[in-house]
């Protein structure tokens, strides 16, 4: 009678599965180390949510109370500790995560280190704008992020506004305004100066004030304190 029942009883099936865990190696002072964790979390909140985390306490010597305090602090930050390494078993109370041994180091693959989608990798914006064609009358080029380089001429009635310096390899007949974001070290260079107006960081000069001897020559303009200096190039 008992025979069939014995046959249907099966052993608990155990399956093995391996995960790559993040290993935290706290350093003294613990408060400073927690600040580092906070900075990481500020950059990418939720980064450790749902990921196995192991505490390696080999580098520090903590009392059971201090370990409990550290684990509680991590839990406040939504980091659940899976296990603890590198510590004497006697220091771990039953309310703490279990002691783990036999971990092997491995390289974290980029996919495991993937950044959360809310913070995509920001490519540095190009800090200069290159214009290969002449800038015609009536056109307005505004580039507040950096330098503007024009290979042709800038026509009368055209304007270039740049956060950085302005380089013109043709004739400048229009307006050039450099350093508009308060960059007083920006300069304006041109192959031939016939400008209607030059401005750097809000300080400007009109064509009338331009030295007649400079006209049609290569020149540069820069700020010396609050005065604009315009001198020939070479």
């Amino acid at each position, binding site marked *: 009678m008992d025979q069939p029942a014995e046959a249907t009883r099966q052993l608990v099936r155990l399956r093995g599965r391996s995960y790559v865990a993040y290993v935290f190696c706290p350093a003294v002072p613990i408060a400073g180390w927690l600040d580092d964790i906070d900075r990481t979390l500020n950059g990418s909140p939720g980064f450790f949510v749902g990921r196995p985390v192991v505490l390696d306490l080999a580098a520090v010597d903590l009392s059971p109370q201090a370990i409990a305090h550290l684990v509680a602090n991590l839990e406040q930050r939504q980091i659940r500790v899976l296990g603890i390494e590198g510590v004497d078993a006697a220091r771990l109370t039953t309310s703490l995560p279990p002691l783990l041994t036999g971990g092997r180091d491995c390289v974290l693959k980029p996919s495991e280190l993937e950044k959360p989608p809310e913070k995509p990798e920001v490519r540095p914006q190009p800090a200069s704008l290159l214009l290969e064609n002449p800038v*015609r*009358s009536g056109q307005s080029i505004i580039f507040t992020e950096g330098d503007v380089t024009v290979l*042709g001429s800038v026509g*009368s009635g055209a304007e270039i506004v740049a956060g950085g310096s302005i380089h013109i390899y043709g004739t400048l007949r229009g307006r050039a305004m450099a350093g508009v974001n308060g960059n007083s070290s920006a300069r304006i260079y041109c192959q031939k100066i016939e400008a209607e107006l030059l401005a750097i960081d809000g300080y400007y000069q009109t064509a009338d004030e331009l030295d007649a001897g400079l006209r049609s020559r290569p020149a540069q303009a820069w700020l010396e304190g609050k005065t604009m200096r315009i001198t020939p190039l070479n």
Partner: protein
Amino acid sequence: MAKVLVVTSGKGGVGKTTSTAALGAALAQSGQKVVVVDFDVGLRNLDLVMGAERRVVFDLINVVQGVAKLSQALIRDKRLENLWLLPASQTRDKDALTDQGVGVIIADLRARFDWVLCDSPAGIERGATLAMRYADEAVIVTNPEVSSVRDSDRIIGMLDSKTVKAEQGERVVKHILITRYDQARAARGEMLNIDDILEILATPLLGIVPESQDVLRASNVGCPVTLNNAASAPARAYHEAARRLMGETIPMTIPSERVGLMNRLLGRRAA
């Protein structure tokens, strides 16, 4: 392969309409089938310069609005059988033109002609932008004076940004046509010289048309200058410009009034 060419300038009074009529007639005389289209809706002039003002029945706006067929609005020139005119409306304004309507007409004209010459109104508003919208090539008419040159520069900027070609990443082929050029005044420094103009506009030169009474005389009798007096200096300049448009390479000259032999021999009376 039909070519759509816009004659434009930005500034008024520089000779767009005169140049459209003269170039159109010169191309037609070379055997090309040509239509000249007046885009100056509300201020039409091309019909007068072509001498067709008494034969206008339907116009560009009628065709855009579907009131008339294109073939009803086209007027054939009395002197050249392969020269046609599509007149503008005098009673409407430029708002009557639509981008789509102009596109349909230009596509239709492309199928019927070798050259479609669009006479642009002055300014940079709707009329001028629609005249250049579908152009393959552009003739920018410029007088040797600073205001005209600066306006031309502006128009070149628009040709490079507002046309269908520009939006497709291609380029409208651009030519500068300098009109009302007076060599004596330029030599005295009273006018911009050719090199200065070309340096500012950075665009190849199509021709130099000298200032001449012949242009006014031809306009008054309603005849393109290239037909009215083909031997006159402006007519020769326009003929050369038309040949350059057709791809010929001709050395650039500034045609001047021919002085007769007797005048040359007996030019000055001794005191």
